[in-house]
């Protein structure tokens, strides 16, 4: 009898140890990971979570190392190989694609762009059997067959800003259009930087999500002004990264992991893991609920992941400080808005 109890105890300890090991491998738990220097950044296709057909309509290229790629990578993690219409900056083209997929009987149509909201309000009621997933948006416009998603990008922005302030006193930010998650990220970044003693970062919105030349010129203006670190968002930010590289300035990414642009100078990236909310939405769709809820990505739910660059030699104190900040944000001890 005693032996049986002892075996049970050992079994329990062994099981707990296994779970702990699985959850805490390396330092990469939940909302923080570190890339292996020189490793392939590509996302592997996961086991499929659904048999439903999925289509994605997105404004920029599917491999833009930014907004659209974050969604494509998230779908891969869920084992979904969607039909894709990308590069639809023109809303009318996106609307035609969204309607076309719905007419073709696709079960789930993801409209990956805030600007598609108006079109969706017209299209969704015409296809009550189709579920539309739309973002970034904080509400579903009252549509029963629309789910909405939104990243609390200010959280990762705050962390990036906090780290940047530890590396440089003056920081330059290259923003695209003053809207959506770009504003959230930039405002969070500025808060984090100032919380760690930096002066208010210099923020420039170029007015375009895609104009690389403007992003490059803006970043160069920041560099000329003597900033010690740069960050930016949208696919146009690749232009700012080339300036960071030319001037040897640390770079902070968001949306996707920007190590693809700069493996040496990217310090950390806030990466959107839309799969966290998509899996929940798909589960509801399979259960017959086609929409009606808005969900957000946060550091707490693992939808926002801070990916540190294994190639960048970040001081361990700074890294520890950043992880402490992440924990505080998750615990609600730090407000990032």
């Amino acid at each position: 009898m005693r032996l049986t109890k002892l075996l049970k105890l050992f079994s329990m300890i062994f099981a707990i140890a296994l779970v702990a090991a699985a959850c805490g491998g390396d330092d990469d738990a939940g909302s923080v990971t570190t890339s292996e220097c020189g490793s392939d950044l590509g996302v592997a296709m996961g086991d499929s979570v659904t048999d439903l057909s999925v289509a994605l309509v997105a404004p920029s290229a599917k491999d833009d190392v930014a907004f659209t790629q974050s969604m494509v990578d998230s779908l891969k993690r869920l084992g979904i190989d969607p039909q894709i219409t990308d590069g639809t900056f023109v809303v009318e083209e996106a609307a035609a694609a969204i309607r076309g997929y719905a007419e073709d009987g696709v079960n789930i149509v993801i409209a990956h762009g805030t600007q598609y909201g108006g079109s969706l309000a017209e299209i969704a009621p015409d296809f009550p059997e189709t579920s539309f997933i739309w973002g970034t948006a904080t509400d579903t416009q009252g549509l029963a067959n629309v789910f909405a998603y939104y990243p609390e990008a200010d959280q990762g922005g705050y962390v990036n800003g906090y780290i940047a302030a530890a590396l440089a006193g003056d920081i330059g930010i290259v923003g695209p259009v003053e809207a959506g998650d770009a504003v959230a990220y930039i405002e969070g970044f500025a808060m984090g930087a100032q919380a760690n003693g930096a002066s208010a970062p210099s923020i420039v919105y170029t007015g375009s999500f895609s104009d690389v030349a403007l992003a490059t010129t803006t970043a160069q203006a920041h560099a000329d002004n003597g900033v010690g670190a740069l960050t930016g968002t949208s696919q146009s930010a690749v232009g700012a990264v080339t300036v960071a590289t030319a001037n040897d300035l640390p770079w902070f990414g968001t949306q996707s992991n920007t190590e693809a642009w700069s493996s040496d100078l990217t310090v950390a990236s806030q990466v959107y893991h839309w799969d966290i909310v998509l899996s929940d939405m798909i589960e509801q769709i399979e259960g017959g609920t086609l929409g009606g809820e808005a969900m957000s990505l946060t550091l707490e739910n693992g939808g926002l992941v801070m990916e540190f660059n294994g190639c960048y030699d970040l001081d361990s104190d700074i890294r520890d400080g950043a992880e402490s900040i992440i924990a505080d944000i998750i615990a609600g001890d730090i407000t990032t808005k």
Partner: protein
Amino acid sequence: MSQFFTLSVLIATLATAIKFAVPYLLAALGETIGQRSGVLNLGVDGIMLLGAFGAYYTVLETDSHLLGLIVGIAIGLIMGVLYAVVTVFLHAQQGISGIGIFLFGLGFSDLLFQELVGTTKPVKPLPTLDKLPGVGGIFEPLIEIEYLGPLLFDHNLMTYTAFLLVPAVTWLLNKTTFGMNVRAVGENPQAADSLGVSVARTRFIAIMFGCVLAGLAGATLALQLAVFQHNLTNGIGFIAVALVYFGAWQPRWVMAGALLYGLVTATRLRWQSLDIIPQGASDIAAMTPAIITILALVLLARRARGPAALTKPFTRH
């Protein structure tokens, strides 16, 4: 505002304006030659995109900027033949065929990019004078000259090429037989034809010049930015066409227009970076270059008279 009016910031802003103006200037100079012969090409942006992708991909694969620029020129040449055949020999409506060339360039450059590259990978940017292999050391002391160094010597070779092309194109148009033929077929093709000038051949060559410079402008843009992505030009080609009107079909005024556009853009970005323009006004600020260009067109260009036969196909009677 006082922080903007320091010599170092003003010089840096001017240097940025010069860099920014280069692709506009190259494309607009080419378009000037074409328009002086009576051919409007609204496909400049599409040709720039194809030239940009060709140059970017070549540098990505070979690491040779020279080869990249040559590929950009070659693409311009091929597109020039296509556009010339359509407009000069098939007498297609110039505006529509130009838009067709633009859409082709926009779509095909993106298709090639998706198929051959996928995710944007930065390449080495065009080197500035002091970083030129072998001879860079000669220019290092020049760049270190206070204020003037960064303004005049901290540029890549394509910047100097673009600005040297201004007197070259002026000379070509005003001092050579070919230039006189170009102007003649642009003003009165019937009269030129009656004097033995081949209107078709002259326009064909003028279009070649224009498209080669458009291809080179795209290549320069991609290699200055050191990247390529969907619609990299963001309408530079269309602004270049507007600059030809702004510059009243005179290369020196076209250059002035390109520099003005570059200066307005560089100034507004600098003002934003120095918090002179408040963040809330960023949308309005983004429109400034376009607004100033339109105002300048309204105030200045209306006084200029364009080539009389511009956009008119020539048919021998």
